[in-house]
């Protein structure tokens, strides 16, 4: 055992001195490698944390939303649909919601306007998301003008700004009372944008949804789980898009690894020849090269992951903000809670460390299997 450990220690000594001998080359390799790990890890961490965040927020969302479709498009739904839906067994409560989009030409941003009953908002007042307040440089008690359906303007006073905790989904949100909503959009009485349902038993959701479609074939019930799946898909897609954009950097890295994989420098080959000549076995040389690859890839991996962690969870992921948070002008500002597990880190590890270590072993193995007498002939 002692012999085994000493042998490893000696070979590690050689590895370290070998790495230091090619300081510039190895340092350049670590910089590029770290950068690639940093980029990929940032996307992975970000997508995973945002999905978790969205899931947490949506946990409070209604279990079923019923929309009415006219000619395949979302239309207002009569409130008397609610009375019939309430009769379905298992439905605890049905409420109509009024909401819509408002384009503000001064900031070129779209806001989501929604009628709120809880908290109740007095006429002439609004509660706004942080993105809206930032975009309009507005503070509490400031007034915001809204252009109504007939071209006139209504000024609504900011009563409150929503909590930062909710910013991921409420950045562009404006809550107001029904009267003000109708003044802006001219919505007819007895109509709602959609209906939200509370259901007693979570397992009955699908059955209730089916019953609603049977009762009102012109409606579309949307389950909370479906929204979650859509969020997942959207963030996965955005994450994928980021990876595609970053593929230039990744391609550069592959070329670098390929270069390393297809050959050793003449100096490295000479060294391997000498070592074989003075009595090193092929396995000793492979062990050295394995450690070299492992030192470079592991240090780059950890460095890249740590930098990505700092980037995503401490610096507010400045590099990918526009791509991941939305295409809107109102980027939500929030700090993410670290949410990644063994799966994400091990995927990153297998995508970066393993291929690199393997590709560096192949040329070394080729060089290490040369006959030791080659050193006598060079």
């Amino acid at each position, binding site marked *: 055992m002692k012999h085994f*450990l000493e042998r490893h*220690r000696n070979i590690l000594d050689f590895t370290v001195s070998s790495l230091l001998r090619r300081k510039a080359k190895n340092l350049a390799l670590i910089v590029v490698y770290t950068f690639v790990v940093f980029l990929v890890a940032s996307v992975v961490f970000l997508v995973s944390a945002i999905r978790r965040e969205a899931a947490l927020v949506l946990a409070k969302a209604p279990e079923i939303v019923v929309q009415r479709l006219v000619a395949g498009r979302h239309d207002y739904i009569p409130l008397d649909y609610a009375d019939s839906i309430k009769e379905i067994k298992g439905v605890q409560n049905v409420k109509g919601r009024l909401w819509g989009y408002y384009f503000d030409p001064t900031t070129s941003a779209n806001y989501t306007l929604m009628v709120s009953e809880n908290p109740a908002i007095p006429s002439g007042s609004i509660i706004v998301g942080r993105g809206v307040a930032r975009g309009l440089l507005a503070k509490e008690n400031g007034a915001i003008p809204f252009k109504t359906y007939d071209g006139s303007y209504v000024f609504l006073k900011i009563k409150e700004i929503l909590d930062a905790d909710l910013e991921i989904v409420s950045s562009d949100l404006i809550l107001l009372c029904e009267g003000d909503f109708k003044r802006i959009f001219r919505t007819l009485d007895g109509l709602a944008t959609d209906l939200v349902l509370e259901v007693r038993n979570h397992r009955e959701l699908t059955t209730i949804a089916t019953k609603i479609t049977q009762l009102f074939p012109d409606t579309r019930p949307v389950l909370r789980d479906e929204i979650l799946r859509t969020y997942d898909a959207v963030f996965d897609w955005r994450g994928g898009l980021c990876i595609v954009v970053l593929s230039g950097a990744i391609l550069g890295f592959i070329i670098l690894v390929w270069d390393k994989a297809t050959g050793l420098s003449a100096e490295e080959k*000479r060294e391997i020849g000498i070592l074989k*000549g003075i*009595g*090193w076995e092929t396995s000793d040389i492979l062990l050295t090269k394995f450690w070299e690859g492992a030192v470079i890839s592991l240090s780059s991996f950890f460095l890249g992951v740590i930098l990505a962690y700092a980037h995503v969870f401490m610096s507010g992921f400045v590099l990918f903000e526009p791509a991941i948070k939305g295409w809107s002008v109102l980027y939500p500002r929030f700090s993410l809670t670290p949410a990644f597990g063994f799966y994400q880190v091990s995927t990153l590890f297998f995508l970066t460390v393993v291929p690199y270590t393997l590709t560096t072993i192949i040329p070394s193995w080729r060089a290490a299997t040369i006959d030791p007498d080659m050193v*006598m002939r060079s």
Partner: protein
Amino acid sequence: MIELHAVRKVFNAGRSNEFVALDGISVGIESARVTVLKGPSGSGKTTLLSLLGCMARPTSGRILFQGREITSLPERFLTEIRRRSFGFIFQQFHLIKGVTVLENVMFPAYPLGIAHRVLKQKAEGLLEMFGIGAKAQSRVEWLSGGESQRVAIARALINDPEVIIADEPTAHLDSKLSKELMEFVRQMRSDGKTILVASHDPIVFEADVVDRVIEMRDGQIRDRG
């Protein structure tokens, strides 16, 4: 100590560029003596040294080291014999650049699993013995030809081998350094080492320390000495 029976070494066998480097060599090398393989370039000296030093296997024939047949041993065992029983001094010394003299001397012993501290002491002792102890921490590329030669000899001795093999060791040395090298050979011989040198330098094969000169030409032995 080492016996060769009808040894033949062919490079690129079966191809258009087939080359017979050694053709039916049968010779015995005595222990604790200095044997020189003499002959012009291409005579097969280096190839013969490689076979004697377990660096390569013959195409046909048998090699016995200390009475044990080694011709058909797998690479691992051959390497084990090579690093424990043979020390090599190469034509261009082949020191590893960018590392210290001390490390270069220690390298052949690294895979043996000897404690680093013990190994370091041994290497320092050898460097002192050859008068270059002060250069232990210098990088090898800063050494003169004579100093490099001494480092190469110290490296060959680190595993305390029974046989020292030197291929054209004076090829890159002036007459003074070549004579100095022969003095080191004398010292090693008096320590009981078997020394095998390939050279066509008269300073080597005419030196009084040499016990036997084997003359080679065209892959065959012309004079057994």
